[in-house]
């Protein structure tokens, strides 16, 4: 008999409604587990009193027969997502005491579905990083091997679900920050199509790339979570007015007729041999389930990293200009004058990676360099999107490839080489540039027992195909049933 913390969202719903245990008991179990594993450093802010109060309110709803899909279920939320009355820091000193006066729309939607906010998870500062080593609140450890990174920037959201100290969580993905940690932690991680989920209340990093998405231990849970947070929001002008399909219903066991595109540019140089072996085995498995593999080419793949490291920092330099110590957040203690207020607040308040990216952004947008860098990058971006569009129009229904070029690397291994850190996102970045939906799901382990993820990429607003393929693959394998040994 599994303990409550092992149960899926579907099983939790049944157990809570069937009064096997109460929402308060469930919340207490998770809070106790979080405490036992505090060395992982998954949480920046925990407010047990609030958690228990929300759980109590949930129990009343359940008793009155009014439970919704997530009533009484605690969900961890990445600390880049605003929670009313609860500190939201984006893992930065510059927001270390910021308390939002409003909930992000995704939090409003979680609450409308009855969820309990479990706590605010650790992350790379302002979502800039691929290892969760850039946080003002310390690094996060991978529960599969505590000397290794969980991935980033949503490291805390991934590690908490993998460690069984949260049943599911929300992260954000700008260049891979959900899919890469999902791959390194053996989870299902979803980045919905750009515009599928509202960004209102999400601390902005790169506005044309950011999306919120869930981490879960299985495909069905991920589908449930994606459904809860999706939908047009008038408060986010980039959210699309499209109905939200039933993602759970898309899960199938049969892939007959499905054409899976395999991009040849994703299987060259820099890809770890064991990762390649597992991913290719997964592709074979898809054919066993009825799918047809089609080799495709995405010719501008190699340019994607450069395009991203021009566009994302440029947008970040604009978005982070608001952190000036005037209206909220950290302020330098003894400014000489107004300019010093700005420069010292930002110099002292931002970590090194954030400063690096703000400076790259300022550089590529500055007079004399705008055309050569930013404008060019926007044009190459259009070409990258076109590569995908042509592949989907002519060759395949969904694309499958690795999520990360390697398994979890050691803490400290890449901190002094920013460029090598940036290369961790080489397979995920093109998806954000093209605005497509992407997901990572478990497809194996390497010889060191470190998780490997398979990435699926869908057509715009066609997350259903990804859930169909992922669901079928998961049902025919056992990877998702493994858990880190404590």
């Amino acid at each position, binding site marked *: 008999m599994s303990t409550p913390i092992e149960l899926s969202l579907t099983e939790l719903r049944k157990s809570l409604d069937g009064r096997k245990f109460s929402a308060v008991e469930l919340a207490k179990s998770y809070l106790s587990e979080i405490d036992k594993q505090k060395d992982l450093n998954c949480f920046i802010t925990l407010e047990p009193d609030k958690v228990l109060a929300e759980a109590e309110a949930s129990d009343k709803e359940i008793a009155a027969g009014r439970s919704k899909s997530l009533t009484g279920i605690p969900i961890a939320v990445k600390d880049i997502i605003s929670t009313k009355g609860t500190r939201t820091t984006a893992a930065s000193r510059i927001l270390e005491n910021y308390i939002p006066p409003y909930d992000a729309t995704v939090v409003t939607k979680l609450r409308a579905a009855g969820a309990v906010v479990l706590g605010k998870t650790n992350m790379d500062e302002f979502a800039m990083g691929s290892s969760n080593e850039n946080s003002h609140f310390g690094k996060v450890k991978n529960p599969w091997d505590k000397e290794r990174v969980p991935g980033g920037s949503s490291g805390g959201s991934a590690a908490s679900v993998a460690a069984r100290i949260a049943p599911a969580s929300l992260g954000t993905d700008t260049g891979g920050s959900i899919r890469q940690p999902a791959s390194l932690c053996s989870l299902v991680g979803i980045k919905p199509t750009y515009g599928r989920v509202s960004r209102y209340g999400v601390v902005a990093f790169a506005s044309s790339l950011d999306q919120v998405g869930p981490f879960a231990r299985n495909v069905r849970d991920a589908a449930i979570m994606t459904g809860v947070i999706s939908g047009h929001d008038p408060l986010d002008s980039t959210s699309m007015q499209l109905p939200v399909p039933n993602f759970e219903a898309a899960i199938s066991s049969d892939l007959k007729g499905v054409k899976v595109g395999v991009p040849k540019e994703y299987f060259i140089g820099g890809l770890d041999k064991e990762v390649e072996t597992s991913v290719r085995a997964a592709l074979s498995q898809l054919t066993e389930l009825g799918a047809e593999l089609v080799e495709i080419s995405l010719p501008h793949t*190699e340019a994607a990293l450069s395009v991203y490291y021009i566009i994302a920092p440029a947008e970040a330099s604009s978005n982070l200009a608001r952190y000036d110590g005037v*209206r909220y957040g950290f302020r330098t203690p003894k400014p000489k004058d107004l300019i010093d207020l700005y420069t010292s607040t930002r110099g002292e308040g931002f970590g090194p990676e954030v400063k690096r990216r703000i400076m790259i*952004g300022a550089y590529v947008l500055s007079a004399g360099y705008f055309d050569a860098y930013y404008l060019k990058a926007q044009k190459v971006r259009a070409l990258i999107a076109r590569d995908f569009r042509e592949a989907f129009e002519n060759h395949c229904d969904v694309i499958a490839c690795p999520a990360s070029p390697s398994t979890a690397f050691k803490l400290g291994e890449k901190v002094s080489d920013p460029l090598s850190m940036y290369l961790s996102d080489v397979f995920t970045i093109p998806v954000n540039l093209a605005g497509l939906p992407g997901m990572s799901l478990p497809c194996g382990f390497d010889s060191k027992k470190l998780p490997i993820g398979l990435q699926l990429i869908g057509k715009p607003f066609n997350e259903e195909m990804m859930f169909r393929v992922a669901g079928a693959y998961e049902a025919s394998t056992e990877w998702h049933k493994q858990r880190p040994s404590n």
Partner: protein
Amino acid sequence: MLSDEEVRKIARLARVSVTEDEVRHYAGELSSILDYMAKLESVNVAEVEAMTHVHGSSNVFREDKVVPSFSVEQALANVPDRSGQFIRVPLVQEELGE
């Protein structure tokens, strides 16, 4: 390779203070990152329109109608140095430079 002076200029544009050690450090790091972007030089973008929105949306407007917003208290709750309904900041100097 970016010069120290170029790094200082970028830091001024970005309104971020940097120590002399940091200037040297960033010059090296930013240079290798910017070198990497030279990969774009070989990409042919003749006739390509810059992508400003992935799904081609533009100018999403709403009705010009007043809707509830924050109270003054809520809006000023996070101010580091407050004086009534005002935010206190250092004197704005006459000459701010660039």
